[in-house]
Each structure stands twice: as C-alpha cells, then as structure tokens.
C-alpha cells in the first residue's frame, strides 16, 4: 500500500483493440475489415478487489486479458498491470500475475502434478523452502494430496483445474486472473474451487479478476461486476446495480386471506400471475421508482395479506437479458 491511497493493480485508459481481417480471398484480399474487440475501456482495479468481468462470447473478455498480461499490444489507449507496461515489462510482470485459462493447460500433461510444480518453482526461481511451504499450503487447501504423483493426463477435469489453479498461484502472484475457471466442473468441484479462492484472497489479499458465464462464481466470489458488450464496459458496479441497469425487477409474492381479483394498476408495478383463484399473486416492481413497502401498502388496501416473500432479480436472468439485447444488434 502506498500512503496516498489504495494500490492500483489494473489501470486501463481508453484501452482499444482492433483486429483487421482480410475480406475475400486470394489476391483480392487486400481489402480489410476491422473488428473492434475492445472499445475504449477505462478500468481501475485496486489491490484486494475481486472483480467479475462478464459478457457474452465475443464481447472482448479474452482480448482484454491478453492485453493485461502482455500477449497483445493495444491498438489505442494505455494499460498498466501491477504498475508495469505489460508488453515491455512482460517478464517482470509474469512474477506478479497468475493466470488460469480454463481452456488451456499450463501443466505438463505427461508429468506427475508434483513435477509440474517443481518445474514452475524453478521457472519462477522460488527459494526451495518457500516453494515447499507454498506447495504444501496449496495442496492442503485444494485437497490435492491424493493425486500429486499422478500424471496430469490421467486427472479428472475437476482435479486438473485445481492443479491449474495451484500452478498459477505457486509464485504468490498479487493479481490472479481466472478465465472461466469453473467451466465444465461439477457442483462440488465448483464449490471447492470457490471456497479456495475466497480463502486465498482472505489470507493473502490477492486481487482477483474473473471471467465466467457461471453467475454462481460472480455471486459468491466478486464484490464488483464489470459487464462488457461489444468491447465496451456497459456496467461497472455491484450486482444489484447491474440488475437495475438492465431493468430487472424485484418481485413480491403475496398470499392473501381470500381469493381476490388480480392486483392490477398499482403504480410502477406489473401483475405477473395469480394462483388458486387469486389467493397467491405475483407482482413485479421497479425498485428505482417505488419501494416494497409502498407496493405492500397498496396491496393491503385492497386485500388482507397473510404472508409475503420478496424475490431479488435472478442474476442469470439479468445477464440473459443483457446477452439477448446484445445479440439482437449483432
């Protein structure tokens, strides 16, 4: 930490990446088309934050990550990761960043897990005592003791992902980037991995940047969500704010004492459905324009309420709305 504020781990200003593709074939292919994968992204992540970086396929998530770690050069704008220029200082940066690509492995497929760790410890020039301590910590927390001597190619997907995460974290990076870490994992494996990441963050203050299509990851791991669409950040804030951005509504379910007519016409509220001849009714309301109390008061003025529940917007639904909206103009 510096004295004058929090430590900035990721800072991008107007970050843009354009890919040019040849249109047509053969000698006529000189005509090129440009595709803007990341468009004027300004993002700041402070040390210790856990940020979910979400968006539909092709929204520009992976391109952003590649610019953060120095694989791709930005077309415009600037990026600093851990205070470094990722392309120029790639090799120094590599000591401070750990990346898990859900779809590609950084382990040696024909070697036992333990040997992969030993190689990575050598690559990162860890002191033998540090490496051993860290490996023991990771093995215990990720429950990998049972398969340390198994070649990577014989591991189940869940086991391999845990080994991948351990491999990326062996050198105690201050920034961990996880690109779809839970893809294809079963419920239990997902839960284990999430618990580990929470514990790791609590123990070491690690900064997390996570791309995922699994909203459970976001809900459990992230305190901030950045939503990208067509390369632009369309939301940066907490999950509740994201729901408001896309106009997702909270829902009020009331159980009435007696069957009642549909509760229509309450301000800022839409009647969704009635059950049991109107004994149970479901209303959606816009949380920005009204409150649950106001809606309830309006309901109570028309019928006697026996019980009620309030449902928050389903995050899956929120994101589906965003993806659908983005798909329409694609």
């Amino acid at each position, binding site marked *: 930490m510096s004295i004058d504020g929090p430590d900035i781990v990721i800072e991008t200003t107007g970050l843009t990446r354009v890919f040019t593709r040849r249109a047509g074939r053969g000698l006529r292919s000189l005509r090129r088309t440009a595709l803007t994968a990341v468009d004027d992204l300004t993002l700041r992540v402070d040390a210790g934050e856990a940020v979910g970086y979400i968006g539909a396929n092709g929204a520009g998530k992976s391109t952003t990550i590649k610019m953060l770690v120095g694989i791709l*050069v930005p077309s415009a704008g600037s990026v600093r990761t851990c*205070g470094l220029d990722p392309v120029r200082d790639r090799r120094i940066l*590599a000591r401070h*960043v*750990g990346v898990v690509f859900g779809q590609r492995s950084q382990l040696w497929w024909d070697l036992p897990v333990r040997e992969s760790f030993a*190689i990575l410890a050598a*690559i990162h020039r860890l002191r033998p005592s540090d490496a051993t301590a860290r490996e023991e910590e990771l093995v215990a927390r990720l429950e990998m003791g049972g398969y340390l001597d198994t070649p990577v190619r014989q591991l189940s997907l869940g086991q391999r992902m845990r080994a991948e995460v351990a491999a990326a974290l062996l050198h105690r990076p201050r920034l961990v980037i996880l690109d779809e870490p839970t893809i294809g994992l079963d419920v239990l494996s997902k839960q284990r991995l999430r618990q580990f990441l929470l514990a790791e963050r609590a123990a070491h203050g690690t900064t997390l940047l996570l791309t995922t299509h699994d909203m459970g990851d976001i809900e459990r791991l992230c305190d901030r969500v950045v939503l990208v669409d067509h390369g632009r950040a369309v939301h940066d804030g907490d999950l509740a704010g994201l729901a408001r951005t896309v106009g997702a509504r909270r829902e009020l379910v009331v159980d009435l004492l007696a069957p009642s007519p549909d509760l229509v016409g309450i301000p800022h509220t839409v009647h969704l459905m009635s059950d049991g001849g109107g004994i149970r009714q479901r209303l959606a309301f816009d949380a920005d324009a009204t409150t649950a109390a106001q809606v309830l008061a309006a309901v109570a003025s028309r019928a006697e309420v026996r019980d009620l529940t309030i449902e928050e917007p389903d995050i899956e639904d929120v994101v589906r709305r965003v993806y659908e909206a983005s798909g329409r103009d694609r």
Partner: protein
Amino acid sequence: MVDSSRTGATAYRPRRLGLADRSRPYRVVLASRMRSQRSYRLNFGIDLFSSFVVGFVELAEVWLLFHNAPVIGGMDFRQILLVFGIGDLSWSLASLVFGHVDNLATYLRLGTLDVFYLRPQPLLLQLVTSDISLRRLTRAAVGLGALVVGLRANDIAWSPTHVALLLMTLVSAAITYAGTYVWAAGVQFFVVAGSELTNSVVYGGRYAATQVAAVWSAPLTVLFGYVFPMAMTAYVPTLVLLGLPAPAGLPAWLGWCTPVFAVWMWVFGLVMWRSGVRHYQGGGG
C-alpha cells in the same frame, strides 16, 4: 518499478544470478522431458528405431542414386558419403535440440504459446527448451557412421588445418540448421498452415545439403547456396577437404566461411521470429 516487498512476491529473489542459476529452469524442463520420453520404454525404443530407419533410408537413397550414375557433378559415392555424413550428423544434432520449434503452428493452435507469455523468460528460449527429441540420436548415429566411413574411404591430405575445418564445419552447420528452424517458426506466425512451406525449406534444405550442389540450376544455387546456405553446411567445405574443383557460383574458399553463413542464418531466422512475434501481438508487424 515494483519491488518485492510492495507486491508481496516475497519468494522472488531479485539478485544477480550466475549461469548455473539462470539456466536452472531450462535444465529442469529438459531433464523432465528426457525422463518422460525414456519412461515409456517401448515407445522410446520404437521412436529410436524408426528415426534410425529414416536416416538409413536417406542414406540408401543417395547410394542408389550413385549406384546408377557413378559420378554426379564431379563426385563419386565415397565423396558424397562425406557430404552426407557432415550434413546429416549436424542436421540431426540441430534437430535434437531445435526440431520441435517448427511445430509452432500446433503450439499456437493449442494456446501453448500464450502460456509461455505468462512465464518470466524469453519466448524463443522457452520454446527451444520446452522439448528435446532424443529419438534423433539414432539419426545422428547414421550421420556419424557415414562421416566416419567417408573420412576413411577418401584420400585426405590431413593437416591441423583440415581437422580445424572439419570441426568448424560441423559446428557451423548445426548452428545454421538451428537457424532455419527458428526461421520456420517465425514464418508460422504469419501462415496458419505454414508448415508445408517451412518444411520445404527445413527438410528440403537438409535434402539439398546432402546433394551435389554442382548440378543445381542458378536459382537453386542462390536459394540453397546463399539465402538458406545449405550448400555451405557440407558440400562446399567437403570440396575444400578433398581438394576438388568448385562449380560456378560456389567458390571453394567459401568453405572457410561457414561461421559467417551460420550467423547470417540466425540473423535471418531471428528477424523472421521477431516480426512473427510482433505480428502475433498485433504491434504493427
């Protein structure tokens, strides 16, 4: 700059490292690659054997050619055996260490290269030391055998200069071939299915290197004599060793310049590699 106390990367030692320390990560990878290749014994045995057969067939092909035409371009079989021995031995040794480098297209497709970016080491050095092809040892043995027989079968007026020339040629040739592998890797950044093109240089070049360059057409002489200096790896130095007359376009004194051609091939290769990396990163390459 980021210091380790601030970043919490306490395990990183920012201090001057000796060569042994610097090379350790690479040695660890290579050692594990060798262990893993040998651990599948049957597999390894088959690899060694098939590599030997390939080398032997190449040699048989040369023999067959000279069996039908005893003298080609002023050389007989005993003399071409020496060319083959020098060329094939140095090529096999280069392939042992660099052979997998021209699989870059596969590395790109699998995303392995992106993983290299995440490690604190130069990309090319990681790529080179990411594997080693022990199976090429038997291929090298074929080359060595041809070289030994070739040296004995020919009447060479041995002097210290001749010995120096032979050693210099073997080393320069291996370095030249390694440079072509690096060149081939660089090209594959640009051409997705580039291995066809690069194979024609790497394997076509090796083939050309063990042939009598005197019969080449002028364009071929420029291509495999100078641009990719394959004729300099074995044929031209052999002319010097045996005191044979040199063909037009490939003067014999160039046989003493093999290190220059090795350096050229590496410059060419590294320029191609660098522009390939630039292209991959999209930095206006």
